[in-house]
């Protein structure tokens, strides 16, 4: 009984926190953050408890919709699927979230809308936990949408800034496009398998495949569209860099560590079905590869500290998606998900620390020489950078190389995308690192930057420890046991290290000396392959025009019929009235004509 209640407490405590903050949070900042941190902490405790306890926890589910008719049961329940996948994920999510909550106290200290922010974070945590524990597709979709909302709220935190408002809107809309596919996929899989429970999926998927393989493939690809939206895969990746308009902790928690990884988590959930469909896997791997490569290319030419990290996130998500598609178990990708969660969160928190130190200046070409002003941030950022680049003892190395090993084994060309991306990743992250922390201070803010308060540094510290260590097999496998491929040739490791070294070397040569502006400029990369422009054009010209035409047609054609009909009636009445000339003789004539009419009707055969 007690234990069965714990998952519910885990899930609902952030929701309760959100409601409480909504109603009472305006009273004081302390109250808002206090409630938020308390609720997150409660979830954290529950998550750790459940995980450490281990074993199966039977949780009674709540019937959201439950109806039986004509012998068929239709049941959508809000329930918990606590297994090897979700329990560690819960731990990671709650841990990172808890740290970010604490960090936020410092980061947001001077900001307005404190209560709004914490309410949003609580809502986010609730929805994210919902995704993690979801036992079926519909429940996952429900929370999937909810994280979209919380993301919307948090990105739009500075809603008076036009860019933030637009970014929030864009993020939501693009996600909705992904969800369109997701929902259709759910519908399709449900219709032909009769279930949306993840537990039943494997068996039922086999049934569909046996009947019509392409049906399952279509369904899975549609579901994957959800991942494309949520995990910012190409071509729906555009929202993620824009979402950096939100406060940095938000970027760190939602748009780096947890929410965007939900897509990958979902793929991991449906992995049993996915592995039945080679075509779907192929699609997934190509999308992942392209995303991973393109995002890294775009990242090399960004100047906004958060945007660089955002592209990096997209790129890393691409790795995870590749990981899903190449490995024989979902744990490979999930492993990278975990390590990435920690080090990307760390990177963002460090970036946030830098930004606070720089008085909200985000352009890296206005920074420089911060290693002296912010030594702790410098060190922790360095850990993050190494982890991201995948320098051997750091966590990123273990997880990323594992994916590439699997890709190599699989023999897909996508491997080369991933491999080259290693070089690119190293290049852009070191570029960032060098420009921000080394070289001369490039602005007044840089000269007067200060170290962040302790409340921010503490979470960063914890995260940097985790980033360093979580990839080590004996620690990492405490969370998850990724499957290692057999027969990995040794030279592969060298190739990968080589790519890494090339990237680092180029970055060092170009940026370590502290140039005042970027020595290389590639417009295509800087302008993100003009994809954003293309979307702008699409939305404005195509969709806008189409909407305009629809409105016009509605106003003048559909309604035009109504107008014409009513006008005709009026005109007809007006003309008929003209018969009423007022002359007796005319009336007498009408009489005569009328009699003739009656005779005609009566007397004609």
């Amino acid at each position: 009984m007690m234990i069965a209640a714990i998952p519910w407490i885990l899930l609902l405590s952030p929701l309760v926190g959100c409601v409480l903050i909504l109603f009472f949070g305006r009273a004081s900042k302390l109250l808002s953050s206090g409630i938020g941190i308390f609720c997150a902490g409660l979830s954290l405790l529950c998550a750790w408890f459940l995980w450490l306890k281990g074993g199966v926890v039977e949780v009674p589910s709540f019937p959201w919709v439950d109806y039986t008719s004509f012998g068929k049961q239709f049941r959508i329940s809000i329930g918990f699927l606590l297994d090897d996948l979700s329990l560690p994920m819960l731990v990671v999510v709650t841990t990172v979230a808890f740290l970010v909550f604490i960090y936020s106290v410092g980061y947001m200290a001077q900001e307005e809308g404190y209560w709004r922010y914490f309410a949003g974070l609580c809502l986010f945590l609730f929805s994210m936990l919902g995704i993690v524990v979801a036992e079926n597709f519909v429940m996952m979709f429900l929370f999937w949408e909810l994280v979209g909302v919380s993301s919307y709220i948090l990105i739009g935190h500075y809603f008076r800034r036009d860019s933030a408002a637009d970014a929030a809107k864009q993020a939501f809309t693009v996600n909705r496009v992904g969800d369109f596919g997701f929902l259709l996929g759910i519908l399709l899989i449900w219709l032909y398998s009769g279930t949306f429970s993840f537990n039943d999926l494997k068996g039922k998927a086999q049934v569909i495949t046996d009947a019509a393989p392409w049906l399952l493939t279509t369904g899975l690809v549609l579901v994957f569209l959800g991942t494309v939206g949520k995990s910012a895969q190409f071509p729906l990746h555009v929202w993620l860099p824009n979402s950096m308009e939100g406060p940095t902790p938000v970027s760190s928690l939602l748009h780096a560590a947890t929410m965007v990884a939900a897509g990958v988590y979902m793929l991991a959930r449906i992995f049993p079905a996915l592995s039945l469909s080679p075509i779907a896997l192929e699609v997934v791997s190509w999308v992942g590869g392209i995303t991973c490569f393109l995002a890294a290319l775009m990242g090399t030419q960004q100047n906004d500290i958060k945007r660089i990290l955002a592209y990096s996130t997209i790129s890393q998500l691409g790795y995870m998606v590749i990981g899903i598609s190449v490995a024989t178990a979902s744990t490979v990708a999930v492993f990278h998900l975990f390590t990435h969660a920690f080090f990307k969160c760390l990177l963002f928190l460090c970036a946030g620390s830098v930004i606070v130190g720089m008085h909200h200046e985000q352009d890296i070409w206005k920074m420089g020489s911060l290693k002296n002003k912010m030594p702790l941030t410098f060190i922790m950022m360095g850990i993050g950078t190494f982890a991201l680049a995948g320098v051997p003892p750091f966590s990123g190395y273990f997880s990323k190389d594992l994916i590439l090993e699997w890709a190599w084994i699989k023999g897909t060309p996508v491997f080369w995308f991933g491999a080259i991306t290693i070089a690119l990743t190293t290049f852009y992250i070191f570029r960032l690192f060098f420009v921000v922390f080394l070289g001369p201070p490039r602005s007044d803010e840089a000269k007067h930057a200060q170290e962040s308060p302790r409340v921010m540094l503490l979470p960063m510290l914890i995260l940097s420890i985790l980033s360093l260590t979580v990839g080590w097999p004996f620690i990492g496998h405490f969370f998850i046991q990724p499957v290692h491929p057999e027969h990995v040739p040794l030279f592969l490791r060298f190739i990968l290290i080589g790519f890494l070294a090339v990237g680092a070397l180029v970055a060092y040569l170009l940026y370590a000396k502290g140039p005042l502006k970027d020595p290389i400029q590639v417009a295509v990369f800087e302008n993100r392959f003009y994809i954003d422009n293309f979307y702008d054009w699409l939305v404005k010209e195509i969709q806008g025009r189409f909407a305009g035409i629809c409105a016009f047609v509605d106003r003048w054609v559909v309604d035009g019929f109504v107008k014409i009909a009513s006008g005709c009636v009026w005109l007809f009445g007006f003309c008929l009235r003209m018969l009423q000339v007022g002359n007796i003789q005319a009336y007498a004539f009408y009489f005569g004509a009328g009699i003739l009419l009656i005779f005609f009707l009566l007397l004609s055969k």
Partner: protein
Amino acid sequence: MNPILLEAVLVCYAFLLLLVEAFNSRMPRRYFGWAAVVGTTVVFFMTFFVDSSKMNPEAGYYGFYAADTLAILFKRFILLVSVCVLIMAIEFAPVLVRYLPVEKPDAGSGEMYSLVLFACAGMMWMASAQNFVMIFVSVELVTITFYVMVAMMRGNRASLEAGIKFLILGAIATSLNVYGIAWIFGTLGTTELPEIGAILQSIDSSLFPSLLFGFGLIFAGISFKVAAFPFQFWVPDVYQGAPTPVTAFLSVGSKASAFVVLMRVLESMLSNSELSSKILFMLSLVAGVTILMGNLSAIPQTNFKRLLAYSSIAHAGYLLMGAASIVSGNSGPAIAYYLMAYLISNMLAFGVLLVVGKSTGSDELVHFNGLGKKSPWLATALTLAVLSLAGLPFTVGFFGKFFIFSSALQAQQFILVGIGILGIGCGFYYYLKVIRAMFWLPASKEQSISSPIEISKPYAVMLILLSISLIIFGVYPEPIFNLIP
């Protein structure tokens, strides 16, 4: 009580009033109006004590006079109309007198009351008429009385013009009617409706042309009274020109009594199935065109009285639609109910029109602007009236339309129903125009200066009673329905 006494009492009473009025010039004429109201009311209550079995058909009436439930119903109906018209006439007397060369301020209005009573008696006879001769005579009584009443405001050109139009066209209709009767008589050798019905059941088809020729002419004559296309052209002009109480009387009483006649004639003519198909086809065509004519021409109207005239044409169309659906078997009650609804709502509309017209001196719709502010009660009453005319639920007019359309549907008159729907759509437009004027549009400057509309108490009581019955019977139609055979 012998039913024939009803008309006799009424006519004698009217004659008495006339005499008293002629020899007593000192008494205010208003009193005669009230006396007439009282008399009519008494006769109305007398109808409840009528015993048809007392009537000996052989002894006195030779098949002229029927006192069946239909007749009694319509007699009551006409008496009610007359009461309303009399009350309206009393209210209208000052306006009437304005257009008369008079010695004293209220001279000349006395005749009005007795004329109303005579017309009422004529209509009651119409309701009972079973014979073409009787029909002719009673119709003429009504028509001639109306000639006088329409032209009553003899100083008013519009009234005179209306009188002339009504006179000439009415006379043409009379001659058509007579001609038709002659032919029916010539073909069948009788003028008695039940007998005609009996003969028609086994008649040689070679007689059909002459029979239909006669019927066509009679139908034209009755159509004139009913205001059916194409004999409705006089209606707007005459309604507009006539004194308002007379218009009300004309539009409700005259139409209703003409409908009884039509129903009775149809009843006998339709006893032959071959004839009936032709007649019904003609009827439905006439009904359809009448609905269209009335409703469409009303749309651009700006004069309220004229608008009501067109609307009364439209209602004639709906009633004819009921008549054309006679095969459904329940169109008789439907028509009766519709007429009842029409009575209540049209009387209310004319009642409000009268006082507003009296106060503003015009019947133009513009003068109703801002009535909702100026005298909300009147505005409410008029709103109810037009809504009922439009056939909105919870007013008595709805059930009228409901029954008519259901009988039309039962008779499979789908095209007619379609036209009816179109007509109702138009109807909403022009009836709402009245509501718009009262509630949306601000009163013009000159009107806002004019004093508030004064209504005498009895008149107000009449309006209130009409309004209340309009709603009550709109929710609970059974009392009326029980009266209908």
